[in-house]
C-alpha cells in the first residue's frame, strides 16, 4: 500500500484542519492510511467488506440468535448457536470425569498454576529463579499429589478420570516447562566433543523429527508393555507427558542450536579466558544469549506443542478436544458439533495468542535491556 512517506509532494498534504485537533488528526490519518489514492481506498473497502461479511455470518449466530440455556438440543429452537450444550457440559469440559465432589482439588491446582504464571511473567515481581523452581518442581509435584490423592484422607482419583481442560493444561504446562531445558541439553549434546554423546543426541533428534507424534504415542502404548514386567500396564497419562516432553525437546534442541551457532567464537574465548569451565560458560555466557536470539522459534515450537496435546486421544485420554467430541456424540445433544468445536478452537486460540503476546513482550524487554 502507498505510504505517506513515498507519496509525491502535494498528495500527502496535511488536512486543512489544525493538526492538533482530534478531529483533524483523524481526518488526516484517514487520508494518509485509508484513502491516500483510489487504489488504496478500493483495497480498504474490499478488506472491510470481507471482515464485515465474516462478522455478519458469525455474530448473529454466536450472539443474537443463540440459545443460552436448556436441558437438551430440543430446547435450542432458534437459528443461532446452541450454547446450552456448552453450559450444560461446561464442568465436564473443564474437569473431564474427575469426581464432582473432588473438583476443588483441581481448582487448587489451577490456582497454583495461575500463581506460578503471574510470578514468572510479570516482570516487576522479584525472585524469577524461585518462580522457575516453583514451576518445575513444586507445581508438578503438588498438582500430581493433589489430583491423585491417596494420602491424608484424600480419595485416590486414578489418572484415567482426569480430563478436559485440566488434562490439556497438565500436558501443555509440563510439556512447555520441561521441553526447553531438555531441548537445551540435546542441543549442547549435539555439539559435544564426546562422540558417543553427540551421536546419541543426533540420533534422538533426527528420530523424533522424522516420525509423526501419533506414531510415537501408538508405539509407546503398544510396545512398552513388552519391556515392562508382565501384568503392569503403562499409565497412558504418564506416557503422554513423557512423550510430549521428549518429542518437543527434539524440536527445541534444533531451535536452540540455531542460537548457539549464531554466537561469535569470541564469547566462548572470553569466558574461557576468565577461567570459566564448560558448564559455567554455557550457563552464564552462552545460553542466555543463544536463547534470547531464538525466542520467536521457541514460542513457535511451544504453540505447536500446545496443539499437539490434542493427539493424546489415541492413547485413550480425554483432553479438551476429545471430551468435547464425546459430548457431541451424546444423543441428547446430537448436532452440536459447531458449538463444541467453536469453543475448543476459541480456547486453544486464546492460549496460543497469549503465548505470542508474551513472547513479543519478552523480545521487547530484551531489546530494551541491550539497546542493540
Amino acid at each position, binding site marked *: 500500500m502507498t505510504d505517506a512517506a513515498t507519496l509525491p509532494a502535494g498528495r500527502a498534504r496535511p488536512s486543512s484542519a489544525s493538526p492538533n485537533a482530534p478531529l483533524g488528526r483523524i481526518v488526516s490519518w484517514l487520508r494518509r492510511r485509508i484513502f491516500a489514492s483510489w487504489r488504496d481506498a478500493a483495497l480498504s473497502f474490499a478488506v472491510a467488506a470481507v471482515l464485515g461479511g465474516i462478522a455478519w455470518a458469525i455474530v448473529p449466530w454466536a450472539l443474537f440468535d443463540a440459545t443460552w440455556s436448556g436441558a437438551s438440543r430440543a430446547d435450542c429452537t432458534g437459528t443461532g448457536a446452541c450454547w446450552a450444550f456448552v453450559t450444560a457440559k461446561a464442568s465436564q469440559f473443564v474437569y473431564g470425569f474427575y469426581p464432582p465432589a473432588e473438583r476443588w482439588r483441581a481448582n487448587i491446582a489451577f490456582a497454583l498454576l495461575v500463581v506460578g504464571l503471574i510470578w514468572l511473567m510479570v516482570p516487576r515481581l522479584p525472585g524469577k529463579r524461585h518462580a522457575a523452581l516453583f514451576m518445575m518442581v513444586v507445581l508438578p509435584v503438588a498438582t500430581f499429589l493433589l489430583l491423585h490423592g491417596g494420602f491424608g484422607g484424600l480419595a485416590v482419583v486414578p489418572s484415567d478420570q482426569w480430563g478436559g481442560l485440566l488434562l490439556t493444561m497438565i500436558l501443555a504446562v509440563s510439556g512447555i516447562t520441561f521441553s526447553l531445558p531438555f531441548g537445551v541439553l540435546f542441543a549442547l549434546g549435539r555439539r559435544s566433543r564426546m562422540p558417543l554423546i553427540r551421536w546419541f543426541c543426533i540420533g534422538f533428534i533426527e528420530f523424533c523429527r522424522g516420525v509423526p507424534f501419533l506414531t510415537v504415542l501408538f508405539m509407546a502404548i503398544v510396545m512398552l508393555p513388552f519391556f515392562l514386567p508382565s501384568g503392569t500396564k503403562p499409565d497412558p497419562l504418564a506416557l503422554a507427558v513423557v512423550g510430549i516432553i521428549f518429542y518437543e525437546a527434539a524440536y527445541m534442541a534444533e531451535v536452540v542450536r540455531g542460537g548457539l551457532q549464531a554466537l561469535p567464537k*569470541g564469547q566462548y574465548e572470553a569466558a574461557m579466558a*576468565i*577461567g570459566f569451565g564448560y558448564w559455567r560458560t554455557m550457563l552464564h*555466557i552462552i545460553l542466555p544469549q543463544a536463547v534470547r536470539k531464538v525466542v520467536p522459534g521457541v514460542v513457535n515450537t511451544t504453540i505447536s506443542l500446545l496443539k499437539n496435546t490434542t493427539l493424546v486421544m489415541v492413547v485413550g485420554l480425554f483432553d479438551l478436544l476429545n471430551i468435547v467430541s464425546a459430548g457431541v456424540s451424546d444423543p441428547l445433544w446430537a448436532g452440536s458439533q459447531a458449538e463444541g468445536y467453536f469453543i475448543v478452537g476459541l480456547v486453544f486460540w486464546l492460549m496460543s495468542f497469549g503465548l505470542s503476546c508474551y513472547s513479543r513482550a519478552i523480545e521487547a524487554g530484551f531489546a530494551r535491556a*541491550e539497546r542493540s
Partner: protein
Amino acid sequence: MENPLIRLAGVNKWYSQFHVLRDIDLEVKPGERIVVCGPSGSGKSTMIRCINGLEAYEQGLITVAGEPVAQDDDRIEAIRQRVGMVFQNFNLFPHLSILDNLTLGPIKLKRVPRVAAEARAMELLERVHIGHQARKFPNQLSGGQQQRVAIARALAMEPQVMLFDEPTSALDPEMVKEVLDVMIELAGTGMTMICVTHEMGFARAVADRVVFMADGAIAEIGTPDSFFEAPRTERARQFIQQVIH
C-alpha cells in the same frame, strides 16, 4: 635470579601442515613488560593464546608460575584465572551490564560476595575512567570504552599477568590513545604484561623488552632502544620501516 613467571621452552605448534610456532623460548619475569611485534601471520597471537591454553601446542612446555599449561588439564581453569586476557574485538558479554561483566568471574569463580565484588569492580572502572557508565550495556559504549571495560574485566580476576592480543587494532584511530593510556597506567602499577601490538610509541614508553617474531619463530629480542635504533636482522629493519612511516 628471580624465577620466571612465564616460561615457554621449545614450543612448537602446527595447523595440520603449517608450522605456526617454531622452537619458541621465552622467559618473562614478574613485573616485566614485553611487547611482541612482527608481520601479520608471524604467530604472535598464536603464541600468547597458547599461554592461557586458548590454543593447544604440540611440542615443548609452557609454564605459568611453575604450573604446566595443557589444554586438556583440569588445572587449566585455575591457570586462566591467574592470566588476564584482552582481545582485539573486546568480547564483552552483551547480555550483561558493564558492572556485571566485571563481577561475574569473581562472584562465580572466586566466591567473592556480590557487595565486595561490585565495590572492587567500581574501583577498577574508575581506574579505567569509566565509572559513570557502570549500569550501561556494552553496545551503548564506544569501542575505546568497551576495550577499557575489557581491561577492567580481566583485572577484576586479580591476575598475575595480563595478555593483550592487538588491543587497539579494531579501534577507530581517535580511540587508540585512551586505551594505550590505560595500558601505560597499568604498566606503572608493576603488572606483568605481554602485549601483541604494533603501537611502537607504546613499546618505547613501557616495554622492558621487545620480542620480534617472523615466520613463527622469535627472530630478535632486545630493549626498545636497541631494537628500534639498531635492529640486528633484515626482517626487523623492514618491519620497523613499515610501522614507523
